[in-house]
């Protein structure tokens, strides 16, 4: 028995199997246990597009990747060090990504004739020598699990379902992880409904762990020491859940009831699901007949004094354009969440993309500007939702938040904030009828929020152009011009409340990466690596896409090149060029997947100094000036 323990800095592991194999669950458990152990983690779940693709096929493969580290990590990692593959299809789909020399833990039971056929493989890769470049650990997980469960009351089929826990137990051993968290979780989840299942899963988990301990297949186990993470209480949070929590929090901060008008669509539906479970917070979720009813019902609720939101993905955003135009004409607060997916049209509904940016900014008829925000990480979705609500209410305007499939389903540790410490969202309902004009404006150029039910405020508004003070219909040309420019000025004014743009990494130098949305982690990782190699590289990650911060031109000027990586054909690039007349370098990828760090390093290469001056001392958090990426 080998008791050696090797210490590692970072590890990337991917669990892959059939969608019926419980890989998401396995990955989630591993993530939580690892986070509890103090590592920084970043994850990437990857579901199949079909609801129930035929078992064993390539279309049915489900994966979950985790990077965990003793320092900060920002992405789930480019290439797995370890791949757990539960069947042939899973190996086939994922092998190409694994690091050369990496470890493959494969369930040999998933490589029988039927499985090979379904995976479209003529011969078993376990036998044809094609895995020579990897360290292969093939074991019959199914049989081992069955054996571990001998004596339990469960049938063969049910018992087989525990095999993912065997694999998990084995991996826990491999990385010196305790089993307690998962055992507790199994208890909580199954103990009541089916104690036998709980028992079986725990038995399988332990068997896997013991197997690692005893079988002489591993030279040693590994340990990844805890990272230096900001103190506090954490939990794992997906982007969709974070948006839901952010909206509920915003409502509470504003002292309003939350109203969600929406229509289900992948990958946004989970926001609805999360909020529907919060009736006790006074949340109304209205599952409308379509996206148009979703947005306009929210407009009705906003008019009535609720904090109103609508959630959707690309095709739904296209449908909501006319409704958003009404909201901005009536100048009512409204939060529109677009969880972007691969487009155009139905496109790649389960994949991620960032191609709705220009649609969000320009996709309405007439001059119809509105603020557009994008969160950068799953946890940041929480803060961005609150910020969107704050802007919507302060400026009486619809606001679009651009999340995406990667953020929505991705999970990261979220530092649980102290609610009392988050600044309130001030709301002023007009109640005084004397001197009331529906389109009079305050210092933010916002008009009053005047609720039906308030005596003496009876007034009529709508989608026709209105008189700039009384709100009465006006066909006057000068008034129209004034109103068009005022609406634009109101949105432009939002930028006045921005904190100075945060620059991560070097405050000047060779290259500045400018990104937005879910590419934050990949860019961050690349910047870290480049600086470690001695390059002077900075990062600006824009939360506010419209209006843009006023200080960008000055920041851009401090670098030799500005590179704009995006998961589209260069939409932010175009925006920056048009607004700032700066010849930014656009770097794009449209594969339904996030950037790999390596791709960004390559993109930067031609623009970097041949001989970097010196190796930088990488200070924790490597911020140039250090405001928190929270809602300050």
């Amino acid at each position: 028995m080998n008791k050696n323990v090797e210490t590692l800095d970072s590890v990337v592991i991917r669990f892959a199997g059939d969608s019926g194999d419980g890989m998401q669950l396995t990955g989630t458990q591993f993530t939580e246990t690892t986070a509890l152990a103090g590592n920084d983690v970043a994850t990437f779940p990857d579901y199949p597009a079909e609801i129930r693709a035929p078992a064993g096929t390539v279309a049915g493969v489900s994966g979950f990747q985790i990077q965990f580290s003793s320092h900060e990590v920002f992405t789930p990692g480019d290439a797995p060090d370890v791949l757990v593959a539960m069947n042939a299809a899973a190996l086939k789909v994922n092998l190409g990504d694994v690091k050369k020399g990496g470890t493959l833990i494969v369930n040999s039971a998933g490589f029988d004739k039927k499985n090979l056929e379904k995976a479209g493989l003529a011969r078993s890769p376990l036998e044809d020598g094609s895995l020579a470049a990897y360290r292969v650990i093939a074991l019959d997980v199914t049989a081992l699990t069955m054996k571990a469960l001998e004596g339990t009351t469960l049938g063969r089929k049910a018992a087989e379902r525990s095999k993912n826990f065997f694999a998990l137990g084995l991996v826990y051993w491999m990385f010196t992880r305790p089993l307690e968290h998962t055992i507790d979780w199994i208890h909580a989840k199954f103990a009541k409904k089916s104690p036998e299942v709980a028992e079986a899963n725990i038995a399988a988990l332990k068997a896997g762990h013991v197997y690692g301990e005893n079988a002489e297949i591993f030279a040693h186990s590994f340990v990844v020491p805890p990272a230096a993470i900001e103190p506090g209480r954490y939990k794992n949070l997906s982007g969709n859940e974070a948006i839901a929590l952010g909206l509920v929090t915003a409502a509470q901060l504003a002292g309003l009831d939350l109203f969600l008008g929406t229509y289900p669509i992948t990958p946004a539906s989970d926001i609805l699901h999360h909020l529907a479970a919060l009736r006790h917070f006074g949340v109304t979720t209205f599952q409308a007949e379509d996206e148009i009813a979703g947005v306009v019902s929210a407009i009705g609720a906003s008019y009535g004094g609720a904090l109103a939101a609508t959630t959707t993905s690309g095709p739904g955003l296209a449908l909501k354009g006319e409704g958003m135009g009404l909201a901005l004409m009536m100048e009512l607060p409204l939060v529109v969440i677009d969880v972007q997916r691969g487009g155009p049209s139905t496109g790649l509904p389960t994949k991620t993309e960032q191609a709705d940016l220009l649609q969000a900014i320009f996709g309405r008829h007439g001059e119809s500007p509105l603020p557009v925000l994008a969160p950068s990480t799953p946890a940041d979705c929480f803060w961005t939702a609150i910020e969107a609500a704050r802007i919507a209410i302060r400026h009486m305007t619809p606001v679009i938040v651009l999340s995406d499939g990667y953020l929505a389903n991705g999970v990261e540790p979220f530092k649980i904030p102290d609610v009392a410490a988050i600044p309130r969202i001030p709301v002023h309902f007009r109640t005084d009828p004397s001197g009331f004009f529906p389109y009079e404006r305050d210092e933010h150029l916002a008009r009053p929020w005047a609720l039906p039910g308030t005596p003496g405020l009876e007034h009529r508004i709508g989608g026709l152009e209105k008189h700039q003070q009384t709100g009465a219909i006006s066909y006057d040309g000068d008034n129209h011009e004034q109103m068009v420019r005022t609406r634009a000025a109101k949105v432009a004014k939002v930028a006045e409340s921005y904190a100075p743009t945060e620059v991560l990494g070097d405050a000047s130098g060779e290259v500045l990466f400018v990104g937005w949305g879910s590419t934050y982690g990949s860019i961050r990782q690349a910047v870290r690596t480049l600086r470690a190699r001695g390059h002077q590289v900075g990062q600006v990650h824009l939360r506010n896409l419209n209006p843009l911060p006023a200080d960008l031109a000055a920041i851009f000027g401090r670098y030799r090149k500005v590179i704009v990586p995006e998961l589209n054909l260069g939409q932010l690039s175009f925006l920056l060029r048009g607004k700032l007349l700066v010849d930014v370098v656009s770097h794009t990828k449209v594969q339904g997947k996030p950037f790999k760090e390596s791709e960004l390093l390559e993109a930067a290469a031609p623009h970097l100094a041949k001989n970097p001056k010196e190796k930088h001392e990488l200070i924790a958090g490597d911020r140039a000036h250090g405001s928190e990426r929270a809602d300050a």
Partner: protein
Amino acid sequence: MSSLPVIAHTDPSALTRKDFVPSAEVKWCPGCVDYSILNQVQKLLPTLGIPRENFAFVSGIGCSSRFPFYMETFGLHTIHGRAPAIATGLKLARPDLDVWVVTGDGDSLAIGGNHFMHALRRNVGLKVLLFNNRIYGLTKGQYSPTSELGKVTKSAPLGSIDYPVDPVTLALGAGATFIARAMGNDGPQLYDVLARAARHNATAPTEIYTNCVIFNDGAFDQYTENKAEAQLRMVHGQPLRFGKDGDKGIAIDQHGRPIVVPGDAPNVLVHDEQSDVLAFLLARLSPPEFPQSFGVLRAVERDSYEALAHAQIAAAKAKRKADLQALLGSGETWEVR
């Protein structure tokens, strides 16, 4: 949790018609029946015991949809076809308000057909005034979904080939708990019907025949020229009779088809607002074979959508405390020191 301002309401008993007349100039064409409807609504509202500030009128786009501008209440003149969905959001957020939807046959049955149908099936507490002039007025005279086959308009110079849809049968098909029909230019008839609609607990649409003097003049003359023969006035619990002194009645044959029988025949049907099959039969009647039915075709009480929604919220609140800090901290958590 909500911090909506707490407000002392005005006294509704003091209200008169004049309180609902704003200063804005009414801009319908002279002779348009929309004026008559406006008049009846302005007469009706003060009788409902509701403070003026609690009325909200929500409309789409069309001549008829200008209505909110002519009411001294809260008013939203929104976008084409979406008024029922906007009003649903408003009513869900604010069940204390008396929300009225004003719409045209194009607004509610062409572009807005789906929202109309879904408001009905959900049974949202909205009064719906459906101004049916069987034409698109505001866009200057194209045929609408209720225009008759063969109608000649600018968009159908050789005659429309679209079979018309009947808003009443459509509403019944969607499961409406209330549906009524009235002649827009028959003040007393309209007032009576709207008074019933105003008191219904949930979705209460009234189809109002509205003569458009400019683009479809005379469309409803068929129902007024020989009123006794052409109109079947329905009264709950009363036999369904029409004609001079009620000399004719409506009965049903073994195939479920309506037939005309002598007014004193034993099989004359009795109007029953609870029977949706009967309502469907009555809605299907039309000249020349039959009279056209006017009045309340169907009225049954069923919990409104907003009542169910708020009951669910209240029950959830009674059962679980809404502790935001606890919510944020729920699930698996860990402490980093």
